[in-house]
């Protein structure tokens, strides 16, 4: 049987998260849909595609805000929506985001299933590649005190080895516990490059517990909540991890940001759509995943050259 390949696009959605995994049959697994204004909706509106599943790591607006627009798109087939409970379901924002999802579920357009540990989202025919949730279990989900504490952690595995980890907004302590000793090719965030527990005493130990080769952070230029956190990026870079942010901040290069000059418009280069605000740095990132390797898109070297010319790129530890 031929080597099956996946294409994973890490989207630039500004402050938020959204990744799209293209399966060998061309259907999509969407991991978080980004905010209400997510460019993913523009892309899907232009060319409706078959969606195998939508996985929402947790129900914050910057991860799930685009859901109503997505489920109401005409011409789209959706298999399953996976989501977990991370807050009171009488919460206004929860109801407002999921009302449209529930309405479409009642029309039998798709199933909505609880996301929890060991939930297999997708598996290749050869079983060499799979996408699985490794956190939270039912009890961990219920016992969590805050929504971010129960954010799901998803893994894309290649022959049992973890290739990509999506921890949503999970605290670093939990990521370290669940992924201890792993060396994934790519880690996203968590929490847009500023883990919620980054001020805790043992934070450095938790960061060191897992050593990704690359960190992708989808972050907004406007730096809501002051993300990404420079210290976290420096620590990752210090461990030899290559850090890439989707957008620039004023701290990286004031001139580019003020003049609205993108470093690299990867959304165009990859045929995707850009967010409506912010100044792109890496923009989107695409990787092709086979059973044995993971290859990034052709724009890596160009981006690196340009980043080195920036004034104080946080990703290179220049603060």
């Amino acid at each position, binding site marked *: 049987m031929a080597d099956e390949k996946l294409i994973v696009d890490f989207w630039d959605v500004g402050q938020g998260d959204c990744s799209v995994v293209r399966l060998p049959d061309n259907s999509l697994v969407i991991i978080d849909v980004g*905010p*209400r*204004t997510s*460019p993913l*909706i*523009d892309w899907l*509106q*232009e*060319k409706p595609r078959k969606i195998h599943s939508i996985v929402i790591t947790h129900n914050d*607006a910057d991860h799930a*805000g685009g859901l*109503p*627009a997505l489920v*109401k*798109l005409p011409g789209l087939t959706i298999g399953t*929506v*996976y*989501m*977990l*409970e991370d807050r009171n*379901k*009488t919460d*206004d*924002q929860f*109801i*407002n*985001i999921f*009302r*449209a999802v*529930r309405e479409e579920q009642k029309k039998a357009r798709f*199933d*909505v*299933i*609880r996301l929890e540990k060991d939930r297999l989202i997708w598996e290749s025919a050869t079983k060499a590649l799979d996408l699985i949730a490794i956190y939270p279990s039912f009890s961990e989900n219920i016992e969590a005190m805050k929504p971010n504490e129960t954010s799901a952690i998803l893994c894309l595995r290649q022959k049992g080895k973890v290739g990509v980890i999506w921890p949503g907004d999970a605290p670093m302590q939990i990521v370290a516990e669940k992924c201890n000793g792993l060396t994934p090719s790519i880690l996203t965030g968590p929490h847009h490059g500023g883990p919620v527990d980054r001020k805790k005493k043992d934070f450095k130990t938790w960061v060191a517990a897992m050593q990704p080769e690359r960190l992708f952070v989808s972050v907004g230029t406007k730096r809501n909540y002051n993300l990404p956190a420079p210290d976290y990026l420096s620590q990752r870079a210090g461990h030899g991890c290559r850090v890439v942010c989707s957008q620039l901040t004023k701290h990286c290069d004031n001139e580019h940001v003020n003049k609205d*000059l*993108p470093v*690299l*418009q990867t*959304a*165009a*280069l*990859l*045929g995707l*759509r*850009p*967010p*409506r*605000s912010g100044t792109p740095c890496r923009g989107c990132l695409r990787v092709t995943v086979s059973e044995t390797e993971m290859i990034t898109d*052709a*724009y890596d070297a*160009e981006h690196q050259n340009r980043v080195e010319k920036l004034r104080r790129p946080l990703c290179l530890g220049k603060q």
Partner: protein
Amino acid sequence: MEFLTPNRPSSPPEFNAPRYAYVGQPLKADKQPAHLTEFEFAHKVIPLEGGQQCLRLLKSLRLNINEAMEFEVQDWGIKMDCLQLPELPRELARRFMFLLSAAENEQLTEKDQADWVKISDYIDFRQFSVDRSPPRYQEGFLQTNKEKFIVVWHDGTRESLPPKAARALGDINAGERFSAHVKLGKNDETIGLERVSLLGATSEPAMEDWSAWPTKS
């Protein structure tokens, strides 16, 4: 007085010295320049789809003209006869549309990829995408319709609508929930609303039983 003239010359200048210097053979360029001359193309808005859309440029194009009176658009890989200059916007639009389509279908050759990187530096792709994007479904709550129309969208964002967009909510009362297809502009603001529907009072969705949702398997 010595300290006032520290740089006094040690000897007076030779006013009668020769006013030329021998520099050997006259200087000659080794190579001919790559082009005769170059111009800046002043237009920064390229019409697409018969003017329904446009492509805005972030920087000016440079046209290099050779001795055969042909010009080449720097970084764009377009070469034309000078007499065809009026056709240039059309050629730019065609080049852009070809490369974008090839990128979307993953059919870029290596040379195309290299050209596309250079060309993408000239284009305001965000504005192009914003102009091109159709309105999207959103739900909201009309907080007030006196003087200003203020809406709280389903993600909790509060927005004061511009008058042109607010007109579409004329049939919605303050305190009511609605759905609409919303055209978003640059920086995420609402620039238009259409296909507005009434969703009912704010308390209604909470009446549904959400306790067993989502299902376990």
